[in-house]
């Protein structure tokens, strides 16, 4: 009996470590939202599809080469984005359920932005495993749009930074703005 309990405890420990190491979030299905939304973006790319996509990115083109570099260490990209014609037409509870998954020690909120004026909120989280980023999550909610981005794998912020100016990614000047980002208001 004792050995059985010990084995169970070891299994639970292994399971917890596995969960802690995996930066993939359980995204709600958002049933029925596609009918309500005026625009929907649903992206589900696992390691196999990312590898396939990498094969179709042309390394001779600077944009493709940069994207290829960014996705080289990734094992999953998951995006859910819904745009509505009316304000707050989406279930806030389901968005909060994703936020709750990020309230674990492995996830660290690196940017928290709340704007009362624009009624928008953006949270950027990093999952860390032995001080290495192995996941990124962005939850952005606006009155008529909400987006959840979950990137799994070795996220190299430097590489992501190099994508600035491509694919509509802005020049953030993260180094210069870092102290201000930390002091982002609610």
């Amino acid at each position, binding site marked *: 009996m004792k050995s059985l309990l010990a084995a169970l405890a070891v299994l639970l420990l292994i399971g917890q470590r596995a969960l802690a190491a995996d930066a993939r979030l359980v995204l709600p299905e958002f049933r029925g939202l596609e009918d309500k939304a005026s625009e929907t*973006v649903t*992206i589900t*790319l696992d390691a196999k*599809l*990312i590898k*396939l*996509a990498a*094969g*179709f*990115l042309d390394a001779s083109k600077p944009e493709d080469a940069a*994207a290829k570099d*960014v*996705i080289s260490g990734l094992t999953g*990209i998951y*995006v859910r*984005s819904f745009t509505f014609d009316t304000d707050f037409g989406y279930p806030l509870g389901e968005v909060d359920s994703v936020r709750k998954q990020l309230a674990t020690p492995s996830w660290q909120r690196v*940017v928290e*932005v709340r*704007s009362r*004026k*624009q009624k*928008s909120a*953006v949270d*950027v989280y990093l999952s860390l495993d032995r001080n290495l980023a192995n996941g990124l999550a*962005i939850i*952005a909610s*606006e009155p008529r749009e909400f*987006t959840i*981005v979950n*990137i799994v794998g070795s996220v190299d912020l430097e590489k992501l930074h190099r*994508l600035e100016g*491509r*694919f*509509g*990614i*802005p020049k*953030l000047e993260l180094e210069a*703005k870092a102290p*201000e*980002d930390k002091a*982002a*208001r609610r």
Partner: protein
Amino acid sequence: MSHDLERQLRAALRAVDAPPDFSQRVLARIERTQARRLRALPTWLPVALAASAIFGALLTHAWHVRQERAGLEARQQVIDALRVTGEKLDLAYRVVNAELQPAADSSNDSAPDDQGA
């Protein structure tokens, strides 16, 4: 007795010349055997082999087309995901800037007054 046996053996084993058409008959028999063997192969076999080869080629082509379509779709999804990620980071940047801008403006406006005072 022994002489009689010997005579009979000699008569039985005496050298006899082959008939003049012997070689033609042997060759004709070989040809007939080969023709029979060829006729024994089913006639549908070459057709089946050809059909298999064509089917295999079509299957390979279809797999390549499907793989290319899936690859291009995955590539587009990667680009879309990076675009959406960029847009949300941009939103955070804009909100922070909008919140910081009035504070910066008011401090600039108040600077000369402070100096004047």
